[in-house]
C-alpha cells in the first residue's frame, strides 16, 4: 500500500478552489486599482500626520530603545517557549506505564531540554540581562 499523495489526486478536482482564489485576488486588485482611478483625492497636512488614537503625535517614531528591552524580550521568549513545551509533556507523562524504557527516554528528553534553558539562563545572567540599574 502506497501512501496517498498529491500526485495520485486528480488535479481537476482542485479547480473550484483555484477559481475562488482567482476571484479573491481579482476582487482585491480591482478594488485597489479602481480606488486609485476614480476615488477623490484631498491631500492636506492634517491628513498626513500619524494616527495616534486621536491624540496629537509627540516626537519621532524612530527612537532608539535601550538594548536591554530586546534582551529581556528574548529571555522572555526563551522561558515562554519552555512552558509551551513543558505543558503538553507534563500532561502526557503520567499516561506512560511506570518503569517502562519509554518513560526513561521521555524523562531524559525533557531534562535535556531543561538543561538547554538553564544554559540560556546562566548566559543571560552573566551577560547582565537581569541587572536593572
Amino acid at each position, binding site marked *: *500500500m502506497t501512501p496517498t499523495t498529491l500526485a495520485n489526486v486528480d488535479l481537476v478536482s482542485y479547480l473550484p478552489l483555484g477559481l475562488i482564489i482567482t476571484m479573491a485576488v481579482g476582487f482585491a486588485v480591482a478594488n485597489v486599482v479602481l480606488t486609485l482611478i476614480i476615488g477623490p483625492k484631498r491631500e492636506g497636512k492634517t491628513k498626513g500626520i500619524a494616527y495616534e488614537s486621536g491624540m496629537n503625535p509627540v516626537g519621532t517614531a524612530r527612537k532608539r530603545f535601550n538594548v536591554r528591552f530586546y534582551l529581556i524580550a528574548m529571555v522572555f521568549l526563551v522561558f515562554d517557549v519552555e512552558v509551551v513545551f513543558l505543558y503538553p509533556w507534563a500532561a502526557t507523562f503520567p*499516561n506512560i506505564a511506570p518503569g517502562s524504557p519509554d518513560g526513561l527516554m521521555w524523562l531524559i528528553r525533557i531534562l535535556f531540554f531543561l538543561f538547554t534553558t538553564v*544554559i540560556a539562563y546562566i*548566559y543571560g545572567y*552573566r551577560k547582565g540581562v537581569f541587572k536593572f540599574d
Partner: protein
Amino acid sequence: MSEKLAILWPEIILFLGTCVVMILGLSPRIEARKACAAVAAIAIVLAGIVGSLAPSGGSALLPELMNYSKGLIAIIGLLLLLLATGTVDRAEERAIAAGQRTFDPLRATRGEFYAFFLFSLTGLMLCASADDLIWLFLALELTSLPTYVMVAISTRGTRSQEAGVKYFFLGALGAAIFLYGFALLYGGTGTTNLTEMHAYFAANGLNPIATAGLVISIVGIGFKIAAVPMHFYTADVYQGAAASVSAFLAFVPKTAGFLAILAIVAAPGWAYGTSGESLPPELRVTLWVIAALTMTVGNTLALMQTSIKRILAYSSIAHTGYMLVGVIAGPGDGSFTQNGVAAVLFYLLTYGVLNLGAFAIVACLEHDRGDTTEPDEADHIDDLKGLCRTKPVMGWVIVISSLGLLGLPPLLGFFGKVPLFTSGIAAGEIALVLVLAINSAIAAFYYLRLVNAALLSDPDPKGETLRETPLPLRRVAAVVATGGVIVLTIAAGGLMTAAEQAGTYAPMTHDEAERYLEAAGRASQAAELPEAP
C-alpha cells in the same frame, strides 16, 4: 531513538562544548575567557574522533557518507578554529589589559563567536547524518544561522554589519525556496524520509510535483554552496567579513549544501535518462546549467577583482561548479574513478585545505596603523607583492595554495580534479567536462596573478605598514594547511580509498522498494493509531 543517539554523539559533544564556551566567554577572568578556544578545539577533536569511529548510519542510500564527512569536518574545522583565533575582541581585550576599561559582558563577543562557530559545525555534522527532509532542513539552518551573526560581529566595521544583514536576508530567501521544494517533495511522495522517498521513486517512478520539488530544492540549496543564480551575496559577504570568517563561510555552508544535495539527489538516484545511469532529465538539465554557469560566472568575474578576498570568493563559486559535475556524474560503478559522489567528497577535502591556506594569507597579514584601532587586513593584491622575499613563509603559503586551487599537477588540487574528469566522462557528460577543462584554464589567469604578485614582483613600497599577525595560531593554521597540501598530495591514494568508500551508493531495486514500502506502509498505519490516554 537510541540507535539515532548512537550516531549523534559527535553532535552532542559539540553541543556540550558550545554550552561551556558560551558561559566561559562571559567570565570576568581573562584566563577563563582565553580557555574558550581551547575548549572549542577539544570539542572538535573529540567529535571528530567519535564521528569517524562511530558505527555507520545516517542515510541508508549513502551509508558510508557520515563517518568520512564527520572526520573531514573535524579536520578542516580545527584548522578553521586556529585561523579564527583573535577575530573578535582584540582591541577590547587590549584596552582591558591596559587598564583603560573594565570587562563589560555586554560588549564582549568572544564567547558567542566560538559558540556560534561550534553551533555551525554541529549543524554541518547533522547534515552528514541526515536521512529525513525535516532533519536536513533543521541541520542546514543550524549551519547557516550562526554564520549570519559571525559575519556581523567579525569586525567592528559597518561593512561587516552590512554583509551580515545582506547574508541574512538572502539566506532567508534561499531557505524559503528550498523549504518550498521540500514541501513539494512531501506532497509528491507522501513522506519526508529520504529512504522511503527513494523506495517510492524506485517503485512508482517520478511524478511532476516531486520533480518540481527536487529542482526547487536544489536551486534553493544553491544559496548554501554559492551556485548561480544564488551566488550574488558571495563576494560582498566574504569581503565584508573578517578573513577567518570568510574562510569559514567558504567551507562550512558549502559542505553542508553539498551533503544536502547529495542526500536529496540520491533519493531519485541515478537511474534515469537514456542510459539508465543518470539523474532524472529535468534534474540533470538543471544541475548541468547551474554547473556550467557557476563555473563560468565565478571564473570570469574573478578575473576583474583586485581584492584577494573577492578573488577567492569568486573562485569558491567556480569550485562549486566543478563539484557539481561530480553530482551530475553520480556513483557510476562505484570505483573511485567513476564515482562522482566520491569525487565530490574528495574534492571537498582538497578544496577545504587549499582554500583555507589561501584565506589564511589574508588573515595572517595586516596593516598596522598604530595600536588604537584594530589593524586592517591586507586584502589588496598589491599587498602580496614580493611576499616570498619579505615574508617567505607567507609567500610560499599563498603560492602553493593558489597553484593547488588552480589544479596544477602534481599538487593536491590536480588530484581532486582528475576524478571529476574521469567520473564526468564515464557518465557521458563530455560537453560538461570540456566546460570544466576550459574553466580550469580561465582560472589560471587570476591564480597566476596571486602567484605572480607573491613570487615574482618586487615588494610594494607602500607596504611598509604590512606585518605578519602577532597571533601565532593563525600562522600555524596557514603553515599546517600548506604542509597538509604537500602531505596529502603524497598520501592521496589512501584518502581516495576512504572517499571511494564514503561515496558508496546503495539503491533499491524495484522489488526491494515495493517490499520496503509495504513494510513502511504498515508501520506508518500503526503509528497513526492514537495512543491510549
